[in-house]
Structures are given as structure tokens and as C-alpha cells.
């Protein structure tokens, strides 16, 4: 399916979605976050320069042959942790705990221990139990304006470090969304309805992504919910993030 090069149109989300559906299944190295990939922000589409378009073909071809692997990587399964609207970054990671920066695993573990520790005490179930640094919940479900507040990347980083794989929210604050994709820590997905009212913390859910969007299945209630396509962020995530994308476009030199 590498026949049709993504024609990198001048940006309308709808046309971009159609374009990406001509690619193989949404292959994202997203979950195999290695040190050299970082991902870029929301709502970005490729402009129509098409300079390094040839380099896109190998990636699409690779995706085709790895399609089973790709599919496996675009499914998330686990327990969900449900939050409501306007979860701000200070609730996600209290500012006092943001002195660390995850330059090493030890500090990642430290910051993971504080993930969502800023939530008020009426949240009886903690995201991370006291004394631990991993969460048993791998999917976070939120309402409107998830991640509002600060631009500190510690917010998506601590969630990813604690073991969260994806967030399904009605909408995101822009800097948090941008940082989530840029760091590759958690996959920020958007639901079409108010999923946070229909799921409960501890429900078992599965998320399956495809080029046209995704599907969230709540095994505990038996209901399914459509998820919005990642849209503009897709091609850049596919390229491997802003740095890889920029290299692909010839904007920055490749790493020696």
C-alpha cells in the first residue's frame, strides 16, 4: 500500500485523515519509545513541500510488513482510572514534585510515585498507591480540558512513567496535548461522547486504534465508544516525532 504517497496537502484535517487511511495501519513507534524519538504536538500536518517524500515509502512499506506488530502496538488494554473535567497539571504532578527531571530511571521512578497525587482526597482510589511508583491503571479517562494549567512536561511524563499508556478525554488543553505527543509518554485520544460519565475506575477497557480513529471497549459494562482520529498529529507521529520529521524534511541534519 505504499503506492499512494501521502500527498501532504496543505492541512485540512479531513483531507489528511483520508490520506493517512491510504497508508498501512497506523504504525506508530510510539510505544517503543527509545531515546532518539520525540514526538510532536497536536494538530500538525505536513505541508506540501514533499521534499523528502521518498523516505516516506520505506516507512509505509515497513508498516505493511510489520502490520501485525503495528496492530499489536496500537491496542491498549487494562484497567481504567476515571477523572472528570479540568484536571490541571498541578493535580497531575504537584509543582513541588516537579523539581526532578527524568534524566534517569531513578528520577522517572520518583516522579512516577507522585503521578496524580495532587488530586483532592475525595478521590478515594489513588492512581499510585502510597509507597509505590507504578499504577495498576494503564488507561486514564477524563472529561473536558484535560491537562489545563502549566506547560511543564512533567505532567505527561509522570503519567507515562507510572505506567499509563493512553488517555481518553473529551478535550485537552493545548500545551498538555502538545507535550504528550512530543514526549511520547501517553497517547492523547479524544472521545466523541462523555465517556467519563459511563466508566468507573477499575473497569477493564480496551482501546484499538486505526487510521480512521479508534474504539474504546469497556468490558465491564459491555459498551463501546468511538474515538476521534488522531488527525493532524498522525503523520508526524508516524515520522517518529518532530526531530525525525524535521530530518525527513531536510530541515535539520541527521544525527551523525
Amino acid at each position: 500500500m505504499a503506492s499512494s504517497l501521502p500527498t501532504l496537502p496543505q492541512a485540512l484535517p479531513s483531507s489528511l485523515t483520508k490520506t493517512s487511511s491510504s497508508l498501512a495501519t497506523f504504525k506508530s513507534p510510539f510505544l517503543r519509545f527509545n531515546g532518539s524519538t520525540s514526538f510532536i504536538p497536536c494538530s500538525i500536518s505536513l505541508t506540501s513541500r514533499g521534499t523528502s517524500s521518498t523516505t516516506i515509502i520505506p516507512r509505509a512499506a515497513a508498516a505493511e510488513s510489520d502490520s501485525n506488530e503495528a496492530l499489536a502496538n496500537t491496542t491498549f488494554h487494562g484497567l481504567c482510572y476515571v477523572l472528570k473535567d479540568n484536571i490541571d497539571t498541578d493535580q497531575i504532578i504537584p509543582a513541588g514534585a516537579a523539581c526532578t527531571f527524568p534524566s534517569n530511571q531513578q528520577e522517572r521512578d520518583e516522579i512516577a510515585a507522585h503521578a496524580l497525587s495532587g488530586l483532592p482526597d475525595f478521590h478515594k482510589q489513588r492512581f499510585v498507591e502510597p509507597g509505590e511508583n507504578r499504577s495498576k491503571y494503564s488507561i486514564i479517562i477524563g472529561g473536558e480540558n484535560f491537562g489545563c494549567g502549566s506547560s511543564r512536561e512533567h505532567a505527561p511524563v509522570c503519567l507515562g512513567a507510572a505506567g499509563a499508556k493512553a488517555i481518553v478525554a473529551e478535550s485537552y488543553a493545548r500545551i498538555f496535548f502538545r507535550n504528550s505527543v512530543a514526549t511520547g509518554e501517553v497517547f492523547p485520544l479524544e472521545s466523541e461522547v462523555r465517556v467519563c460519565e459511563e466508566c468507573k475506575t477499575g473497569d477493564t477497557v480496551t482501546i484499538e486504534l486505526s487510521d480512521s480513529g479508534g474504539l474504546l471497549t469497556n468490558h465491564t459494562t459491555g459498551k463501546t465508544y468511538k474515538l476521534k482520529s488522531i488527525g493532524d498529529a498522525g503523520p508526524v507521529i508516524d515520522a517518529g516525532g518532530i526531530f525525525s520529521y524535521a530530518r525527513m524534511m531536510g530541515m535539520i541534519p541527521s544525527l551523525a
Partner: protein
Amino acid sequence: MAASSVISPSTFLCKSSSSKKDLGISSFPKSSQISIHRCQKKSISRKIVSVMAPQKDRSPGTTGSVKTGMTMTEKILARASEKSLVVPGDNIWVNVDVLMTHDVCGPGAFGIFKREFGEKAKVWDPEKIVVIPDHYIFTADKRANRNVDIMREHCREQNIKYFYDITDLGNFKANPDYKGVCHVALAQEGHCRPGEVLLGTDSHTCTAGAFGQFATGIGNTDAGFVLGTGKILLKVPPTMRFILDGEMPSYLQAKDLILQIIGEISVAGATYKTMEFSGTTIESLSMEERMTLCNMVVEAGGKNGVIPPDATTTNYVENRTSVPFEPVYSDGNASFVADYRFDVSKLEPVVAKPHSPDNRALARECKDVKIDRVYIGSCTGGKTEDFMAAAKLFHAAGRKVKVPTFLVPATQKVWMDVYALPVPGSGGKTCAQIFEEAGCDTPASPSCGACLGGPADTYARLNEPQVCVSTTNRNFPGRMGHKEGQIYLASPYTAAASALTGHVADPREFLQ
């Protein structure tokens, strides 16, 4: 360009997505933020009072001579991306004029820069990066101290021209380079200039939009990219226009205006959009007041805030930098995605009640709320004029505060002004003298302080579940420290009045 004005008894104008049909306007502002009804748990006024129909851009005629109008933000981004025209939704590579970072995010940003561009890589332009330690400075927290040391190393290695260092934590005055709060320092040191693109690793970078430039917050990874390339990939935001007219009442400040607006559109009302402020009231505001207004754009979800530059702007800027600049202005036929008009003369002091910046209420309606403390500081409300205002009210009242009142000047310059400048109408007293007579705490070392809680030993941190009236910018649970702390966001006048009564108070009790 029809503008239908319907006069209403309401004091200000507001928009409601549900009244689309009533108006008979075929294309209503696209930003029909249904989220308003979700994000705000209370009902908002649904009166449409005056709405300007969004101006559509005209597609080029066959002669090709009809020019598509652009808003200020579109023009700034067009120029920065070397294009003649951009429209909202375009994804463009933008040249960055200034990148700012501080102690909390700087180490991470530089770490990513080195990881991606190589250990020996050099930043794109050592004169376009401004490093301003300000967040966790006066603390014994080793990690926080380490952050400043790390930045010192990076700046030395990269020959960064502007690094406002601090080494002696025991005495801020012993550090000649140290400034304090980054957004105030950027302005005071002449780094804010009309028409430019300024990015910062802090959400309140939008403050600089007061200077008629594109300024927004980014994360460490984006900053790492900018460090290496001097460019960033941005999507052009549509612009919401807020026209504020009328004479500013003597008891009202820019903080009241922005709290009014955020209360109107909610914390997600401007997500991914530009908030452009204009009108006769805006023209009458000082630069510091304009900064307060743009500072909280992010609290409405806004991507950036912007105010057309004028003589006030150029006077301020030209006194602080000799770098040339070229202001831009929105075209007459530019398209705006929403239009709001306010008659400022009718507005009243407001607060944002716990726990959201859009939880707006009239200050006078909260006078039965007993408070435990008052905090005056931060990029939002810790500038020279903010302290002058508080001092003016204390002086007019001639009384002592009833609760601990913490004062944290944003920068060294502000601190010096507090101790040196005479407060008008006080017979030559300085702010510091008036504060002392009123029984306030001694003005503290300049930094972000307790606005965001900080390490446990941060001055004025909310360590108990107390009620605090604060001139800061966010009041989500735990923002200033304790999760059950209750923060009322307010103007300096309102904060000072509240300190005097021991309750949330309307400044008119002391200022009429």
C-alpha cells in the same frame, strides 16, 4: 460587515451558542463553545446583547487584486514564517526571535537538545535565548538548587548572553544579575518587542502578548527543538476579539477585566485560539496592566493573547532596548472567530472562587467569606503597579490588616520600587512604609514564590487548609500547597481590601 447592536439592560455583552437561531445570523462564530456549558457548573447568561457578525475574508476576485485581511497574530506568524499570507489552520515553520526558559524546565529542555543534536551541539543563537531562574529559588531543596547550577553550566558552555544568575540564596541583593519572575523580567529587560515571536517554557509566556507580539508557552521537547533550530512548527490560531470600551472605574484593575472575561467564556473558552484585546479601555491601560490582562489568557485555554502596540508600548520598549522592531496591526477586513464587547464603566470588582479561574463572583457578594491570609505577588499581581495599588488602598484606609498579608515582589526591580518610589497621595511615603504601617509582612525575596506552592519551605506556601485571597493566576486544588486550601483570585485592590476586613472584600469599601 454588518454589526447588529441590540441594546440590553445587561451591563456587558455576552455570547451564547444556543441563541444562534434567534439572531438569524447565518454563520455564527465558529467557536460555539458547547464546552462552556460543561466546564462551568453554573448557568451563564444567555442574553445576546451585541454580536458582531464574523467578518469573512473575501476570496480574490478575478483581477486578483482583493487582499485577504489578516489579524495581528496571523500577520506576525506570516512574517515569521516568511509567507505573505497565512490563515487559521495553516501549519507553518516559524522563526523564533526569543526563547525563554527558567530553572524548572531549562535543564530538561537543554537535556533534550543535547540528546537530539549531540553532546557537542551549539544552540542556534546564543543571543536569542534568555535564561531566568525564578521558580524554586529561595529554598533548601537540593534538587531545586541543582537546577540553577545545571543552567549555569549550560549557559557557560553555550555562551548564552542573557543568564540572570543567582548564587547567593541568602541575600538576593548580593546577586547583581538575578532578576526574578521570568515574565516580568523579560519585559523589564527589554526582551519583549512588538511584532516578534517569543516562546517560553512556561504557560504564562502569553504575558508578553501585551507588547503586540506572538508569545506562547511550550514544553521541554519543543524548547529542545527550538534551541537547535531556532524554529518551531505551529498551527495558526483563529482570533477571538475582545473590545473593551469605557472609562476604567477607579476601583477596577486589569485583573478584574480578565477574571470577568474568563468567567464569561470558561477555562476552555479560548482553547487553541488567540485572544485579541482592543478598545478605548485597553488604550488607557499601562504596560503592566496590559501584561496582567494577557497573563491569564492561558487560564481561558488561549494559545496567545495580543494587544495592538501604541505610544504606551513604544515608550516602554524604547526605554529598555535598542533592538529595532516593527509592529503589526489587524487589517480592517480580517476575520475573527468571535467578537465580545464590554462596557467597562459598568463592571465591578470580581474574584475567582475556589477551585477554578472561571468560577467568577462579584467581590461584594463574597463578603461573608472569612479568610485566613492574603498573598500579593507573582507575574500576574506582583509588579510595581500592583504593589502601588495595594499601598494606595492601605493608605486610604488608614487601618491595619486583620490577617497575615504576604508580599512577594516579582523582580529585584519591583522590590526596589517598593522601597523607593513614593506612593501618589501619601505625602511621599513608599509602598514599604505603608505596608509596614498596615502590619503586612516584610516584602520577601523576589521569585515566583508560593503562587505554585513550591518546595515545602517556600515562603507563604499554603501548608494548612486555609482560605487565601491572592493576586496570582490559578486556584485549582492544591495550587498554593495544601490540597484543601481555598484560593480566591483577585486584583491587588481586592486583595488589600480583603486583608483589612479579614473577609473577601470589595475595594470600594475603601476607595470611593
